[in-house]
């Protein structure tokens, strides 16, 4: 039974959603977070140093 209760979400997103509104843009906070994370992930992927090449950089 403890296992079953573990299956229930810790922070269920069951409350009514919050929405952001700028002019024609109308977006749920959840979708907004997903899109912002996507852009941040993309930028991080471009900027973060890639392991394996760092040794060469140092020897340069």
């Amino acid at each position, binding site marked *: 039974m403890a296992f079953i209760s573990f299956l229930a979400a*810790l922070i269920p997103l069951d409350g009514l959603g919050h929405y952001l509104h700028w002019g024609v843009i109308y977006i*749920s906070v959840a979708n907004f977070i997903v899109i912002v994370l996507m852009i941040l992930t993309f930028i991080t992927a471009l900027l973060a140093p890639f392991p394996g090449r760092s040794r060469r950089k140092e020897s340069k």
Partner: protein
Amino acid sequence: MSKKGFRPDVDAPEWKGGHQPYDIIKEGTIALIVVALLTVVFAVMFGSPDDKEITIKTWANAAPLDFAQTALGEMNGTTTTAGYGAPYNTASTGQTLGPLQLAKWAGVRIPINTEKDFVIRPLETQPYDPTLSSALTSWKAASSTQQTTWVNNFTKASNSMKFVNGNVVASTSDSGPVPVFINDLTHMARSGALDADLISGGSFFTTDYTKPLLFLSDGGYLAKLAQDQHLLGSQWGMMNETNSYPGQAWLWLYTFWYQITPFSSSSNADVQVWGMMMLLSVILLLVPVIPGLRALPRKMKVYRLIWREHYRDQ
């Protein structure tokens, strides 16, 4: 070395530099473990939405007048489904894209006669009741002109429609059997029998919910619940999920067109937006062969970041 004819947005320079060890199987294994773990973490933390479905029974009990008005609309042809056109009926041409009548050309493949399928036939399945039985008999014996007159007279009286003591009543005298139909169909809906009849459509096994869903969406109740959940088309609803969950965020562009003119005020918005999205999809597909577009990444120079080690080494 001749660079003649080298097109920087089409051809790639031959790589003459070195190679480095790169373990793609290890990378894939780690990626799989990370993604699986992230999935478990999100599922444990947030769960997933599952708002219970709406039945016609729920609707007719929560909003009996909305149900009764919708049922009358299925008879007088004013509901969305009754006036839809293809693929359900021939009541209208449907949406057009310039000269293209795509829906009409595809034809009536899922025939639905709202008066017969949503009102008369379900009532015929009801257990014997003398009032209903004679109402159905007089309906069938009447000419179609007479039927139309009855329905129109009841439609005129529908402003006075009330739900009193479990019955739908309206002040009308010359509507023939129509008031009995609407009242009995409302009873049937409130008991759950209409759900059962529309879903099964006379067979035991079924997986097709076309009829009950169309009837349900003709009323105002489902849309009201959807509006509360920010799911209406005008609320960018296609990319939204019930409650606070992220939805199909990747539909943002498709949803966007519906919010702006000319689409937001067009009666052919659906086919126009679909046409637009198909065109944009084809453009995305053909980026490698579209001059100008395919030069964008070279001109925007984001690649200098991606390959910064390579350019630093040069």
